[in-house]
C-alpha cells in the first residue's frame, strides 16, 4: 500500500497548530512530540522512496478530494521529490534533536517548535505540489515561518537580519505570484503538467511566458540566494538560532530555490540554450563570489553562510551544465552525469552544512561567542564537536572518502567530458578556496592557545551530541550512494531522470 501523499504536509501542519496549546508546563511533552513528528516524517520519506524505486511507475499522483486534474489540485511524488523529501527528513530530524537542548536558552520554546514544523510542512508541500499556485502557497508558508525564526531572538542584529530577509523574500514571492498570473493568463491552467503541454503545443514561448520565466528565475533565485540576489543570506543565516541556520542553509534554500527552479525550468518550460547558460553563469558567480567573501570573515557562522552561497553554486552549475548539454542535443550521458553531480552535491551539502552549523551552535553554546579571534584550543575541551566538525569540513572540502569528494569528482568529470575545461578548472580552484576557509576554522577554533576566559568551556552532551554524530556518520557513508550501483539506481538515478527526461513529466502526470 502506498503512502497517501498529503500526510507529509498534514502531520507537521496539524502538530504545529497543536503545540502552542501545551503552554509552559507541557514544554517537555511538546519537545518529544515534535521530535516524533520529524522522525516519523523521515521514516515515511524513506519508505516512499523505497516503494517508488521498487514499483513500476516512475511517479505517484495523488488527486486531492478525487477531483480530476486539471480541475483539482494534485500532489506528485517522483524521483526528484522523493530525494528532496528524504533530505528534508534527515536535516529536520537532526536539527529538531539538536533544538531539544539548544533551545533551552530561549523563551517560548513551544512557539519555536510550532514554527519549525510549519516550515517543514511548507517545504514538504513545495516538493510534492503538482500545481503551480499551490507551490506558491506552500513556498509562502515555509518562507513566513523562516522570517519569524530568523528574528526569534528579538535582539538588535536578529531583528535587522529578519527585516532584510523579509523584504527581499517578499519581493521574490511577489515576483513568483506575478509569474503565476502571467502563466495562467497565457495557458489557461495552473497544473504544471497541463502548462507544460500547452507550451509544447504552442511550440515556442510567447513574450508573456518569456517574461514569466524571467520572473520565475529572479524569484526562485532570490529564495536560493544565487549571487546577484544573495544579499540577505549572510545576515539571515547567522542571526537565526543554530538549528534553524542548519535548516535554512541545509535545506530551505534548496527546496524553495533550487528544486523549484529546476522543476519549472526542466519540467514546465523546457530547457533551452540561453537558460542553460544563464544557470551556468549564475552558478559560477555564486561559487566564486561566495568563496572569496567567505575567506575574509571572522564570524564563524557568517563564514559558513557565505560558504553556503558558494556550495549552492556547485549545485546550480551542475544543473545548468546538464541543461546546456540537453539543449544542444549532445551526448545525453554527460548531461545526466552533470545533473547527477549537481543533485548529489545538493544532498551532500544538506548533510554537511547542517552539521557544520550544528557544531557552530555547540561551540557558541560552550563559549558564548562566534568570533574566531576570541577562540582557540577548544580541541581538548570539545572533543566530539571537534571530531564531527572535522568530518564535515573534510566533506565540504572534498577529501576522499568523504561525501563531498564524490559529488565534486562527478562534476569535474562531467565538465571535462563535455569539453568545458575552464569550468572544471574553476571547480577545482574553488575547492582549494574552500580548503583555506575550513583550515581557518580548524586553526582558530580548535587549535592554538586556549584563552583564559574559555577554561570553563564544556562539551555539550545528550541530544545535541546524538544529532551531530548522526550527521557525521551520514557524511562518511554518503559516498556509498554513488559507489553502490543498487543504491544509485534506486535513489539518485530516478531523480536525475526526472530532469533529463524533462517534458515527459507532463505526459506521465496527465496519462495516469
Amino acid at each position: 500500500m502506498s503512502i497517501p501523499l498529503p500526510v507529509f504536509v498534514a502531520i507537521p501542519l496539524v502538530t504545529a497548530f497543536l503545540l502552542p496549546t501545551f503552554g509552559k508546563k507541557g514544554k517537555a511533552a511538546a519537545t518529544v512530540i515534535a521530535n516524533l513528528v520529524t522522525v516519523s516524517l523521515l521514516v515515511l520519506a524513506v519508505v516512499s522512496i523505497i516503494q517508488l524505486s521498487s514499483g513500476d511507475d516512475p511517479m505517484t499522483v495523488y488527486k486531492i478530494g478525487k477531483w480530476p486534474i486539471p480541475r483539482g489540485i494534485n500532489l506528485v511524488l517522483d524521483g526528484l521529490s522523493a530525494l528532496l523529501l528524504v533530505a528534508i527528513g534527515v536535516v529536520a530530524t537532526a536539527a529538531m534533536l539538536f533544538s531539544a537542548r539548544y533551545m533551552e536558552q530561549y523563551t517560548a520554546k513551544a512557539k519555536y517548535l510550532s514554527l519549525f514544523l510549519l516550515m517543514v510542512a511548507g517545504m514538504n508541500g513545495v516538493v510534492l505540489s503538482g500545481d503551480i499556485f499551490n507551490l506558491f502557497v506552500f513556498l509562502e508558508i515555509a518562507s513566513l515561518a523562516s522570517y519569524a525564526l530568523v528574528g526569534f531572538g528579538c535582539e538588535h542584529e536578529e531583528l535587522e537580519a529578519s527585516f532584510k530577509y523579509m523584504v527581499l523574500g517578499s519581493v521574490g514571492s511577489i515576483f513568483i505570484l506575478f509569474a503565476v498570473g502571467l502563466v495562467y493568463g497565457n495557458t489557461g491552467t495552473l497544473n504544471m503538467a497541463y502548462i507544460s503541454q500547452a507550451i509544447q503545443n504552442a511550440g515556442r514561448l510567447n513574450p508573456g511566458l518569456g517574461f514569466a520565466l524571467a520572473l520565475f528565475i529572479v524569484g526562485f533565485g532570490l529564495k536560493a540566494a544565487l549571487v546577484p540576489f544573495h544579499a540577505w543570506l549572510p545576515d539571515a543565516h547567522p542571526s537565526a538560532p543554530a538549528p534553524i541556520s542548519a535548516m535554512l542553509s541545509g535545506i530551505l534554500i534548496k527546496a524553495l530555490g533550487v528544486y523549484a527552479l529546476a522543476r519549472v525550468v526542466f519540467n514546465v518550460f523546457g530547457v533551452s540554450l540561453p537558460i542553460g547558460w544563464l544557470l551556468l553563469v549564475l552558478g559560477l558567480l555564486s561559487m566564486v563570489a561566495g568563496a572569496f567573501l567567505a575567506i575574509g570573515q571572522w564570524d564563524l557562522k557568517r563564514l559558513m553562510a557565505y560558504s553556503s552561497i558558494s556550495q549552492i553554486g556547485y549545485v546550480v552549475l551542475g544543473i545548468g551544465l546538464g541543461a546546456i548539454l540537453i539543449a544542444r542535443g549532445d551526448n545525453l550521458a554527460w548531461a545526466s552525469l552533470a545533473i547527477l553531480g549537481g543533485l548529489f552535491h545538493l544532498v551532500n551539502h544538506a548533510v554537511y552544512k547542517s552539521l557544520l552549523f550544528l557544531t557552530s551552535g555547540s561551540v557558541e553554546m560552550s563559549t558564548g561567542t562566534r568570533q574566531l579571534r576570541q577562540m582557540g584550543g577548544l580541541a581538548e575541551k570539545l572533543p566530539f564537536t571537534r571530531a564531527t566538525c572535522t568530518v564535515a569540513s573534510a566533506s565540504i572540502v572534498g577529501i576522499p572518502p568523504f561525501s563531498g569528494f564524490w559529488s565534486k569528482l562527478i562534476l569535474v568529470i562531467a565538465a571535462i567530458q563535455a569539453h568545458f575545461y575552464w569550468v572544471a578548472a574553476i571547480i577545482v580552484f574553488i575547492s582549494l578556496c574552500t580548503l583555506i576557509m575550513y583550515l581557518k576554522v580548524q586553526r582558530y577554533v580548535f587549535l592554538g592557545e586556549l584563552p583564559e576566559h574559555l577554561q570553563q568551556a564544556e562539551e555539550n552532551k545528550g541530544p545535541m551530541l546524538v544529532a551531530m554524530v548522526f550527521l557525521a556518520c551520514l557524511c562518511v557513508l554518503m559516498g556509498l550512494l554513488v559507489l553502490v550501483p543498487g543504491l544509485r539506481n534506486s535513489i539518485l538515478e530516478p531523480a536525475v531522470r526526472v530532469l533529463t527526461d524533462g517534458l515527459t513529466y507532463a505526459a506521465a502526470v496527465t496519462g495516469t
Partner: protein
Amino acid sequence: MPYALCFLLFMIGLYCVVVKKNMVKIVIGIMVMEYAVNLFLIMLGYRTDGIAPIIDKAQFDPETRQIAASFVNSSVDPLPQALVLTAIVISLGSLALMISICIRTYGKYGTFDITEIRRLKG
C-alpha cells in the same frame, strides 16, 4: 492599457522598496506591489458586462444537458478570484509579521531609518 497601468503600479511599489529609507515606507512599497499583482490577477478573469459564474435554471437545459452559450460567453473567470482571496490572506499574514518586526526594531534602535540600522556588515 489597464495592464500597462497595473504594471506601472507594480513598478511604483518596486521603486519604493528600492529607494526609500524608512522601514514603514518599504513595507508600504511591498504592499503596493502585492496589490498590483492582485489587480493583475483580477483583470485576467474580467469581462466587460460579465455575469457571475453561477449556473442557474435559466442557463441550463435539463433535457439536452447543455449550458446556454450566452453563459459561457459572458461569465467571468472565477479562478483568479479564488487565487486573489488566497493571496490576500497570505499578504495579510506577511504584513502583520513585517509590521511587528518594524515595531520591535523601533523599540531596540529608536529609529525607522535603515541607514542607521546597520550593525550587520561584511
